[in-house]
């Protein structure tokens, strides 16, 4: 109940003689104002997130020249071309004595353009482009999305000529991700089950130890693990150092799975125990089938991790034919001349599987983030 003395008491109750209709209008205006302000703020901040993303997409559709157009334009532009004798030539707006004409430029050499009127392709009109302070010809452009950038980027590698294209990198990333997902699912589930449901001496101490490994920086184990895989086992420049550790469980996934397993009613397991089921049977036949949501989460997050991982491939993969997308893209960027439109096209292809996965499994994504992010 409202306390009449409270400062929060609305104008309406303090001034009952007020016209209620005017009040309603005022309320409407107020809520409209708040809603507009909210939308405005959300959109303004949202630009920070959306614009870089759009810029990546738009750049990947631009022509080599358009990428460096100053000032940059949002939409990709390309020269309008016309076909003459089976070859394509760009169109220019050329100032002539008879006004502005659209001519095709056969070639441009040391400031002189060799124009032809597309209607009379045999009459070449050599024209000096710069006459005094005036530029007499302007390239005619239109909005045009250059899809060709995608095959161009994917068919080349980070270093053309070594026979490894981005398709190879893409396949390598997929192969590694696939085996990491299998390994993660197979190895983490029994471990998490033991921590969630089994009772045995030493369990809680071991659980503290596994949680403590979360705090251990990867750099501490990096060098011996590198030497073990690379020198002792001779697995350098193969996928094995990336895949094999996934088969030996990790603290994050164990924790996530354990939290979920603990929500499965204990009575179900107990009933099975009374019926003489072994722990392995309970685990595989009762707990796992009930755990598809969390298994989906693990799958998605392992994929995300494997797809994104840069340090692992950097340490272990040397030859371009073994590169992953992350490594290939970095290598491509590290070249002396950066081909931005193709680089952005490759980056888009690199990002695409994750975006697709997100739209198919939005709930799984969000659930997983909440589970890993808000440890109880």
């Amino acid at each position, binding site marked *: 109940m*409202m*306390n009449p003395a409270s400062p*929060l008491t609305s104008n309406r109750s303090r001034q009952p003689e007020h016209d209620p209709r005017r009040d309603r209008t005022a309320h409407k205006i107020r809520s409209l104002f708040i809603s507009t302000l*909210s*939308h405005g703020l*959300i959109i303004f*901040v*949202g630009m*920070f*997130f959306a*614009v*870089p*993303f759009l*810029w*990546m997409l738009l*750049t990947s559709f631009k022509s080599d020249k358009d*990428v460096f157009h100053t000032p*940059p334009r949002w939409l990709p532009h390309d020269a309008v071309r016309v076909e003459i004798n089976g070859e394509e030539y760009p169109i220019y707006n050329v100032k002539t004595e008879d006004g502005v004409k659209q001519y095709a430029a056969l070639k441009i050499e040391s400031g002189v353009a060799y124009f032809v009127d597309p209607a009379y392709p045999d009459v070449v009109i050599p024209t000096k482009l710069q006459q005094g302070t005036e530029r007499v010809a302007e390239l005619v452009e239109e909005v045009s999305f250059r899809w060709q950038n995608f095959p161009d980027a994917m068919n080349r590698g980070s270093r053309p000529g070594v026979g490894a294209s981005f398709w190879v990198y893409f396949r390598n990333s997929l192969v590694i991700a696939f085996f990491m997902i299998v390994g993660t699912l197979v190895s*983490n589930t*029994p*471990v998490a*089950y033991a*921590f969630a449901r*089994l*009772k045995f*001496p*030493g369990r809680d101490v071991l659980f*503290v*130890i*596994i949680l403590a490994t979360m*705090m251990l*920086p990867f*750099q*501490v*184990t*990096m*060098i*011996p693990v590198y030497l073990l895989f690379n020198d002792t086992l001779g697995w350098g420049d193969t996928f094995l150092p990336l895949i094999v550790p996934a*088969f*030996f*469980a990790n603290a994050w996934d164990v924790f996530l799975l354990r939290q979920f397993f603990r929500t499965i009613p204990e009575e179900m397991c107990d009933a099975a125990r009374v019926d003489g089921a072994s722990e392995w049977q309970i*685990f595989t036949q009762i707990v796992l089938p009930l755990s598809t949501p969390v298994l989906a989460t693990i799958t998605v997050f392992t994929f995300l991790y494997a797809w994104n991982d840069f*340090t692992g491939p950097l*340490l272990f993969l040397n030859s371009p034919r073994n590169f992953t997308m*992350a490594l290939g893209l*970095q290598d491509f*960027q*590290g070249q002396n001349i950066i081909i931005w439109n193709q*680089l952005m096209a490759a*980056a888009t292809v690199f*990002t695409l599987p*994750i*975006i697709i996965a*997100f739209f198919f499994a939005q709930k799984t*994504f*969000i659930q997983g983030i*909440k589970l890993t*992010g*808000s*440890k109880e």
Partner: protein
Amino acid sequence: MENSTERKFLGFKLPPKTVWTKRAKSDLRTGLLFLSPWLIGFFAFTLYPMVVSFYYSFTIYHSKRAPEWVGFQNYTELFADDKFWLSLNNTLYMVAIAVPLGLFASFLCALLLNLKVRGQAFYRVVYFLPSIVPTVAGTILFLWLLNPQVGLVNTVLGIFGIDGPNWMADPNWSKPALILLGMWGMGGTIIIYLSGLQDVPQSLIEAAELDGANWFQRLWHITIPMVSPITLFNLITGMIGMFQYFAQAYVVGGGDSLGRPLNSTLFYSVYLYQNAFLYLKMGYASAMAWILFIIILILTLLLLKVSDRFTYYSG
């Protein structure tokens, strides 16, 4: 079981002393079998490497030649190494600025996304999507956006008459540029805060409203304390992650000139990597790794200790 038998170790409650019945032995066997993937992995990929890298940190070890024991030489050399201090400084800059700034901005974004407006679901997707863009792709995208001459950001700044900095090419602006990149991908933290905001009991807010608390007072006295466990958790994981900041800096360095411009992006983990795999000073790098571990350990415990007074746990 009685409470009087309760034992403690480092503040953790220990289970009562095990009586080794036949049952306990068979339970242990089953338990260890289930745990075996992790146990093997723990010994092979955590415990053994830890011991070995600790040993390496007291040796001079150039990859192919056998390690040679030198006592504390690596450590004393590190403390006299200007680049070590520089890389630590660069990293502390990011830990002290990027992490709190990211948390603060994430919280504000979560507040925005919690507003009841039409299209809320769409806006949430927009804020979240950049966080799943692969690190390397995002970093390259920002190199392009922040290109001093033809980059979008400086063009837009130019419209407002601002002469944009050289960003990744300027030692004073390379770290702010990386902070921007980090904030672009903070969607995960926003989602976590958002779920925290949704868990704040509506009854508490309404009670405060009745008592005359304004929006800011409700935020300060109810919402922020209620999400403080999330803040603590993200602060700690963010801090640990920032000490290992590597991929973005590596991409900016272009591989062969790590730390550019002028070592302003030579972060701790980058310098460690450089020592281990470019200079092949494995012992020196191992010493760096152990110092890193100790710093992280101390800061984590410190944060946990200090936060006791500022964190509110319900239930």
